[in-house]
């Protein structure tokens, strides 16, 4: 047995998973409070004490790796040129790096924009703009505006390559950290977000973790490698694509409805599954993450109710609108409340179904029939996930739902939403032990063990 300790410094909990690298088995789980605001070690100690009680005796850990979504997550601002092009590519890179996007800007930054960015005080800013050999004026203008601003956070520069050195020099002149990376959109038909993601992760690991005080765990862990959403995306990526020595499961989607947001991860090319369909718009990331900031089971419960309509939500839950409103009021008063009554549990189920349904609508691509003089033509925007082999649910809201399969089915293709390229007939599974994040972390040091752990512990529901 060789044990690895995988830690998630969350906003509410410090979670631990112990995985056996040799067998791929989950050896132990525990959690403690989140104490990032004071000293992460307090929560870590509590979690380790709980782990020791559960396991009898703590093994020697060959790896001790952590992810973090505490202290507000990785708060990022992106800046690009055209909203639909480099600004969108920048957004994709930031989301793929596990960031919490707090602002996305396009075109020339105005004084007001710069003021807004200063106010947002992000942890990292990602500056893009122009394809290689393309526009350089706007990114230079924006770099100068940022150089003169009060903004002190690290800046990752991933725009038109001709401007990168000049901009990095300009921005680092007064002690700011500026890091150059390859252009996120080197040509209009090529999205290349991996280098920017790697640069963001590097800044996160070496600077943000310290700035947020997560580094106080110090020598007790090998490192805080990435934001937790990035580790979930990593796990999805190794599961879907496979690793050296393990074949992947194919195109897959991971649904993660959380307290504040609903995340959707998809792994796959997203190319049209039907021949003759024309792709439009920016190329799509192979590993794509979308975050729905208005779909949170607790912090945004009212927004979910507003999106669906309180009457429809109540009907879906099988309660009266009055009962639904009362349950919503209770959630609003205490976002850490868990359902105490049958009606509240039903409402939670209806909300998670709605959140997952809406989030999938936004994540999946669409196909539209355009009538041309030569006859009807199918035009696809976004990723075609209709052939996805797996749909995996993670997080308490799905895993503890009364009928998790029904929640997952709600994210699949529906006759009434024929335009949406959602999974048609995927296998349905749950990350019942909440260890995708752990597998994503372990993948950084032992991809085969990580793959085995993630696959072995998928609970197949259909």
């Amino acid at each position, binding site marked *: 047995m060789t044990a690895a300790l995988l830690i998630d410094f969350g906003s509410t909990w410090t979670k631990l998973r112990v995985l056996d690298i040799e067998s791929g088995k989950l050896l132990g789980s525990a959690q403690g409070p989140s104490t990032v605001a004071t000293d992460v070690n307090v929560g870590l100690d509590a979690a380790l004490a709980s782990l020791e009680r559960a396991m009898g005796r703590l093994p020697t850990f060959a790896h001790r790796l952590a992810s973090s979504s505490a202290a507000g997550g990785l708060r990022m601002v992106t800046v690009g*040129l*055209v909203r*639909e*092009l*480099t600004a969108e590519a920048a957004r994709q890179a930031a989301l793929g790096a596990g960031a919490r996007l707090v602002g996305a800007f396009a075109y020339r930054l105005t004084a007001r924009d710069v003021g807004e960015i200063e106010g947002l005080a992000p942890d990292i800013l990602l500056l893009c703009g*122009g*394809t290689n*050999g*393309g*526009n*350089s*004026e706007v990114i230079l203008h924006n770099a100068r505006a940022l150089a003169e601003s009060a903004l002190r956070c690290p800046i990752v520069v991933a725009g038109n390559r001709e401007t990168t050195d000049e901009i990095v020099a300009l921005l680092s002149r007064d002690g700011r950290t500026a890091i150059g990376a390859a252009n996120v*959109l080197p*040509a*209009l038909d090529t999205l290349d977000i991996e280098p920017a993601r790697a640069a963001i992760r590097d800044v996160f690991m070496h600077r943000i973790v310290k700035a947020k005080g997560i580094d106080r765990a110090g020598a007790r862990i090998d490192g805080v490698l990435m934001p937790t959403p990035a580790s979930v995306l990593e796990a999805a990526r190794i599961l879907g694509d496979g690793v050296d020595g393990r074949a992947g499961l194919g195109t897959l989607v991971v649904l993660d409805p959380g307290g504040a947001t609903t995340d959707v991860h998809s792994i796959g090319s997203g190319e049209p599954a039907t021949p003759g369909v*024309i792709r*439009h718009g920016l190329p799509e990331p192979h590993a794509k993450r979308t975050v729905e900031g208005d779909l949170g089971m607790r912090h945004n419960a009212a927004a979910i109710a507003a999106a669906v309509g309180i009457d429809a939500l109540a009907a879906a839950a099988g309660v009266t609108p009055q009962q639904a409103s009362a349950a919503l009021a209770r959630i609003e008063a205490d976002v850490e409340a868990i359902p105490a009554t049958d009606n509240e549990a039903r409402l939670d189920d209806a909300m998670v179904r709605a959140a997952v349904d809406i989030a999938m609508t936004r994540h999946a691509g669409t196909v539209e029939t*355009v*009538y*041309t*003089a*030569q006859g009807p*033509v199918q*035009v696809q925007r976004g990723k075609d996930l209709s052939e996805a082999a797996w749909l995996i649910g993670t997080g308490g809201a799905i895993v503890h739902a009364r009928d998790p399969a029904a929640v997952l089915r709600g994210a699949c293709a529906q006759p009434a939403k024929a335009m949406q390229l959602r999974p048609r007939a995927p296998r349905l599974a749950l990350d019942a032990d909440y260890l995708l994040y752990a597998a994503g972390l372990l993948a950084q040091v032992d991809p085969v063990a990580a793959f085995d752990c993630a696959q072995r512990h998928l609970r197949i529901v259909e």
Partner: protein
Amino acid sequence: MPHTIVTGVIGADTHIVGNRILSMALEDAGYRVVSLGALTPAADFIRAAIETAADAILVSSLYGQGELDCRGFRDLCIEAGLSDILLYVGGNLVVGKQPWDVVERRFLDMGFDRAFPPGTRVEGALAALAADFAARDAKGRASMKAALPGNGRR
């Protein structure tokens, strides 16, 4: 640095072959080509031109609806800060048998720098581009000479 040219077939038009041939010929001639392909909305030409700092947009239209699709194209460019970009249009631009000089006039009035009739060979378009870029570069050099020393703007 080579000039950058955006190509594509505008509107609900799927005729891609001629546009492909044109794009390949432009590449062979040493231009940087950003090829948007068939079914391209006017706005996508503009977005691509901004991001790639294009010097020219070559719009193809073969299904007879080009006049509708191209209306306001120059205005869109002006709005997006591309007032000086070179604009060409070519193909079967209108339905029915209309005299070419009338059709050409109509597209020039819309703000296209040149319009090309059906059956134009790529050599024609390449020669026109070479001439227009040469004229612009000469003008650019003249205005640079006129500018004060130290002003490094193009």
